[in-house]
């Protein structure tokens, strides 16, 4: 059986299917005799002790691999298992109703879940999920169901799931997970971005893969073509083992380019940078040959916690990356891009009809200057330690840019007064994601130090296509001539004012798009770390003169598919790099 999905991370993965899903726990309510009550309570207490011991191991592993924030989740789980009201309620239930421990756990858990689910606060409602998780662990222990955990896997597996959250993905062990496939998601969903930065082959948006695959089936993930093969014949397996080998050999070939320049055959040099989401990614970026960071997302500091991060905490996270890249290689930090679909539990926000067109990013920051100022102080302070640049996301009007810069100026004054060092010349740019900015780029270019084109959103807004909606995914066309002409307009406007232009959307690492972008004059390409070496190999084989011709021809065409075919025919070695 072959299933077609969306290629999310390149490479080939072969292995037995491992279904990541909630294991159904069936509890049968049984009445017990009065002399069995004590034994039942003792059994409950023993399994709680065991469950706590399990959680302590999980917590310690999480702390080592992922840090204190991840460990805190499991500390909270342990606390729930030690909770006197919860345990007392269960024991009371066993005694009063004379029922088995499993049924008592299930009933008392349901009471608490109902309380949490009914609260008018998103954060508290999520605690219901934590409690279900904890109760599930306890029930599996009581019922003697072995908990399958990724840590128990001995051989390489292909992970099959409805969806993977970023934290699921972060916990994947590269040595054990040959690849993953999911029902939902697209090329720019979080799990896809994570898979690329971890170098795990992945296919997403398969709609119903979880029902098609059974645990233990042999699965091939073709992350290049976006295909999944289930129980293929031996001949196909051999074919894919050979492909995987060849792919690995090419990766080794790319690695020779680690310390080479990103320069065309006729001597035009560009910068290949990485998109990162935390200091850990920064190390991966360097091992993948990044010449800088073109997009440092700062949302990770704000997510998965109960309160705003302090200035000090932010400063440390920015400074760490700035110092890793040193005085020569730039690090572009993007200010907070949250709101709309990305919610923070501690920031009450009204539900919106159109979160992508709503109260988010710079709009939120200008409305809540106290949040914004804390971040600006932290970024400015980090600017003393490396080549830090900063950009604002989701700018739509010049007035917003000026308002943000006015706050920045205030913060600079405060820091000067306090004798805190920072780089007063720190470059400040904006993301070009909204077509309004691309159209007025000549005006914006006078007031910024640089542009960074965020193509994921720019494509979405230009073609009015929700990138998470699989029914209209055909409209998500980065190579659509309308998008290309906006990009050309932005680059030309910036170069007229002697400003540089980067791109930090997925398009910047797309091998078919690179010749066009190079020809249009893009100065910096920022992409997932794992795409950098292939991009460098491509650029070193291209000449700028040819790229200019390709870009001009593409701009005259009227169809994204035709442009793609044209570029791939003109630059025949693209196929060999994919």
């Amino acid at each position, binding site marked *: 059986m072959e299933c077609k999905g969306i290629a999310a991370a390149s490479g080939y993965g072969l292995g037995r299917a491992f279904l990541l899903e909630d294991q159904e726990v069936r509890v049968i309510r049984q009445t017990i005799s009065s002399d069995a009550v004590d034994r039942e309570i003792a059994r409950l207490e023993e399994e709680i002790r065991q469950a706590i011991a399990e959680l302590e191991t999980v917590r310690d592993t999480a702390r080592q691999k992922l840090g204190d924030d991840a460990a805190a989740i499991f*500390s909270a789980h342990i*606390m729930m298992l030690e*909770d006197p*009201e919860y345990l007392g309620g269960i024991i009371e239930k066993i005694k009063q109703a004379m029922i088995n421990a499993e049924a008592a756990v299930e009933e008392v858990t349901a009471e*608490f879940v109902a*309380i949490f689910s009914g609260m*008018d606060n998103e954060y508290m409602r999520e605690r219901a999920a934590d409690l279900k998780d904890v109760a599930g662990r306890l029930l599996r222990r009581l019922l003697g169901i072995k908990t399958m955990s990724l840590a128990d896997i001995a051989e390489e597996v292909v992970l099959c799931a409805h969806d993977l959250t970023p934290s699921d993905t972060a916990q994947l062990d590269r040595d054990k997970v040959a690849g993953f496939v999911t029902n939902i998601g697209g090329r720019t969903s979080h799990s896809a971005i994570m898979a690329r930065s971890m170098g795990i082959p992945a296919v997403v948006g398969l709609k119903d893969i979880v029902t098609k695959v059974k645990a233990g089936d042999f699965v091939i993930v073709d992350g290049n073509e976006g295909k999944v093969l289930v129980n293929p014949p031996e001949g196909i397996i051999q074919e894919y083992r050979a492909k995987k080998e060849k792919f690995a050999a090419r990766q080794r070939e790319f690695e020779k380019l680690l310390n080479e320049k990103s320069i065309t055959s006729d001597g035009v040099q560009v910068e290949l940078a990485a998109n990162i989401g935390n200091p850990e990614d920064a190390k991966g970026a360097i091992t993948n040959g990044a010449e800088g960071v073109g997009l440092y997302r700062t949302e990770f500091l704000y997510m998965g916690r*109960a*309160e705003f991060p302090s200035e000090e905490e932010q400063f440390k996270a920015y400074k760490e990356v700035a110092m890793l890249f040193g005085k020569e290689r730039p690090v572009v930090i993007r200010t907070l891009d949250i709101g709309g679909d990305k919610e923070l539990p501690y920031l009450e926000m009204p539900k919106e009809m159109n979160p992508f067109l709503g109260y988010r990013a710079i709009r939120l920051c200008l409305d809540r200057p106290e949040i914004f100022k804390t971040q600006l102080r932290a970024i400015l302070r980090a600017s003393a330690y490396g080549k830090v640049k900063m950009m604002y996301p989701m700018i739509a009007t010049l007035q917003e840019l000026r308002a943000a810069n006015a706050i920045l100026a205030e913060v600079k004054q405060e820091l000067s007064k306090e004798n805190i060092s920072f780089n007063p010349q720190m470059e400040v740019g904006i993301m070009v994601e909204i077509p309004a900015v691309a159209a007025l780029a000549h005006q914006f270019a006078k007031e910024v130090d640089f542009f960074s084109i965020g193509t994921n959103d720019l494509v979405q807004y230009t073609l009015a296509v929700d990138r998470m909606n699989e029914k209209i995914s055909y409209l998500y066309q980065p190579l659509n001539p309308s998008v290309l002409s906006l990009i050309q307009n932005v680059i030309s406007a910036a170069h007229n004012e002697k400003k540089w232009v980067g791109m930090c959307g997925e398009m910047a690492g797309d091998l078919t798009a690179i010749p066009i972008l190079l020809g249009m004059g893009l100065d910096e390409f920022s992409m997932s770390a794992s795409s950098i070496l292939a991009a460098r190999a491509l650029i070193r084989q291209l000449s700028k003169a040819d790229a200019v011709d390709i870009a001009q021809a593409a701009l005259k065409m009227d169809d994204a598919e035709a442009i793609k075919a044209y570029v791939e025919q003109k630059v025949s070695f693209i196929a060999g790099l994919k």
Partner: protein
Amino acid sequence: MEKSVVIKNPTGLHARPAALLVQKASSFRCNVSLVKQGKKANAKSIMNVMALGVGQNDEVLVVTEGEQEAEALQAIVELLEGLKD
């Protein structure tokens, strides 16, 4: 014994502050409870405390009863008043 406290930290008694409170309360042998608008919670129970849904500027009554009740009351009130995010 009892004393009323207004919770000042922005996130109220959510996970981390609630955990701190439960740890402190559990270190005493006496009963410790919080009362908010007539609803009573066992302060040694993380789930009870969170289910109380205490937010910023909410007033809660701390009630201690039993061994070392005065010391417990003072310690809990200090902890609640000193909460920062």
